[in-house]
């Protein structure tokens, strides 16, 4: 959060939510905070652990105020030791707690990957179902803030390769508010990726908004001409593209995957079978990204329904550069999505 910018107090928000009055206006950041707070209140086994989640208030101000409310044991500031405290989350989860580990950003999660892949993801299977790991790991992801090559990764789709974990990408306030609790109920490790450009997004949310299911993709905009399949930060660019296409009488259907592992094949295939054309939009690098998996699944399951090869709009295959114009050129944009959709419709330039 930019310094000095006023931040709505979670307590006030929660009060409003508790009133179950009209929909309230809040930011994505506040929705995540409300979700954490809610979980902390509902289940005393829940705690939040990560770098600067406490006194600092979270690197993106998500957990601001929570340490004052829940104390330093349950809103636990961790030293810079990503592998250590992620592994500690694994251990605490096995022992019956419900830790939320915050890895600050996906860029630093690489330091914890051994614990995620070799411990969290394998323990239930290799112990013959004796030790499950009900751990939630949250992290920020994505480019768009000019943070350059080491701080702009979009690796959520890459993580979705790993059996044994689930991968969620809340794109809406409702999901930011609702996915956490559902993830905490899951007996297995769940990774939640919050796109950094969404934190400041404002919107309305039902005052009594609560947990949401996490198994299904959502059709965020119905259309019959082409399926635009995306998730996370790219959802909003895709919806913008759908508006632009509508102006040209192209009715795009926009699917928000919500979960990257497992993927909701049924929703994807139903849409593509209807529209017969698809474009996948993903802020990850193209080669070997989740876009390729979605691509393969569409063709595997709907080859005979397709009128054209699906398209992909992904990030350029290069580390993200610092200057704004280059950064924006590197990642998906509404204009590129429009072009890809038209090209899928044989109306390319």
């Amino acid at each position, binding site marked *: 959060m930019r310094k000095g910018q006023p931040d709505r107090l979670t307590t006030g928000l929660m009060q409003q939510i508790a009133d179950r009055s009209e929909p309230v206006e809040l930011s994505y950041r506040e929705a995540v905070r409300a979700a954490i707070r809610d979980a902390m209140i509902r289940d005393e086994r829940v705690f939040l652990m990560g770098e600067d989640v406490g006194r600092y208030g979270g690197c993106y101000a998500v957990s601001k105020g929570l340490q004052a409310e829940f104390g330093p044991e349950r809103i636990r500031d961790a030293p810079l030791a990503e592998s250590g405290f992620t592994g500690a989350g694994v251990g605490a989860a096995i022992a019956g707690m419900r830790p939320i580990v915050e890895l600050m950003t996906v860029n630093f999660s690489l330091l914890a990957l*051994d614990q995620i892949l070799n411990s969290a993801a394998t323990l*239930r299977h290799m112990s013959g179902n004796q030790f499950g790991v009900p751990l939630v790991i949250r992290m920020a992801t994505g480019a768009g803030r000019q943070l350059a090559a080491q701080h702009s990764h979009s690796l959520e789709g890459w993580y979705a390769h790993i059996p044994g974990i689930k991968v969620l990408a809340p794109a809406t306030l409702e999901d930011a508010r609702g996915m956490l609790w559902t993830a905490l109920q899951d007996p297995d490790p769940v990774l939640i990726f919050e796109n950094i450009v969404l934190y400041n997004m404002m919107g309305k949310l039902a005052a009594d908004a609560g947990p949401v299911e996490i198994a299904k993709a959502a059709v965020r905009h119905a259309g019959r001409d082409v399926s635009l399949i995306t998730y996370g930060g790219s959802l909003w660019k895709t919806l913008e593209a759908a508006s632009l296409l509508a102006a040209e009488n192209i009715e795009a259907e926009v699917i928000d995957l919500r979960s990257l592992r497992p993927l909701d094949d049924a929703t994807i295939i139903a849409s593509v079978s209807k529209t017969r054309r698809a474009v996948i939009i993903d802020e990850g690098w193209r080669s070997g990204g989740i876009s390729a998996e979605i691509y393969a699944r569409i063709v595997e399951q709907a080859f005979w329904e397709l009128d054209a090869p699906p398209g992909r709009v992904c990030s350029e295959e290069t580390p993200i550069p610092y200057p704004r114009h280059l950064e924006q050129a590197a990642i998906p944009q509404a204009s590129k999505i429009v072009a890809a959709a038209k090209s899928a419709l044989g109306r390319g330039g």
Partner: protein
Amino acid sequence: MSAAVDKPRLSRAHELDLLKQMIRIRRFEDACAELYTQEKIRGFLHLYDGEEAVAAGVIPLLESRDRIVSTYREHGHALMRGVPMKAALAEMYGKQEGCSGGRGGSMHLFDRATNFYGGNAIVGGGLPMAVGLALADHMRKENNVTACFFGDGAVAEGEFHESLNLAALWTLPVLFVCENNLYAMGTALALSESETDIHLKAASYRIASEAVDGMDVIAVEAAARRAIQAVRQTGKPYFLECRTYRFRAHSMFDAQLYRDKAEVEAWRKKGPILRFRGWLEANHMIHPEDIARIEAEVAAEIADAVAFAEAGTWEPVETLARFTYAEGTA
């Protein structure tokens, strides 16, 4: 405070039991080595031969509610902890009756019933988990101890550093047990650590520590008693370095080019079983019949375990992917 910690059980029965446990581990692993050559056991097999005094000295002092995190060289830990020998062996056969349902093999013995959090095949990978187990206990104010075993090689890993710091910083009841057998595979300690006196490293984290002769089961037991007592009373971590030696190859694939036969022979003469037995004999605490009885009991248990493992069943391939996620959630 636990009875186990309170009274040093220096009775003859206790001494004999210590000896028996060490012999039991040794004979069991001799059998495993034999079964490996018969290809009943496959994959990597890491034997504990020479290091039995560590498991035998430390583990019986833990309460059943305490927790244990181990490595891929964990047969001795599992047996001492009470994982049934037949379940451990069936696991190494890959049979469904194994303590991990046959999925894990030699490097992945798990047992919820005894709070045995596994075999871990990633060097250093268990340390953060131990910190987390202890963190759960700390947050719930449960006075359990988590004992975390690892080798000298693990000391060089970043996770060693991160875990010791976290445990000390957060005042967590972890007993770190470094089994320093002087080698990490073929890498001698001096090629792996600039400071080879490992227990000194604990000071960097303000963790109390002690080094003990890991070939002397009585010394290990005494040190472990102090250590466990300290963890239980203070809730703080403690670092115990057990200086020991691995008599056999690192795994069954190791030609041992990195050390002399003579070195191994010299250490064998200091072996924990030989030494303890000699001491018991010198002190007339043991009779030839005792040894015979122990060997017979152990042999019978091993024979039972082999029969059990042989008779075990193979998991059908249809359920291969089961337990990737909890049943009914994926």
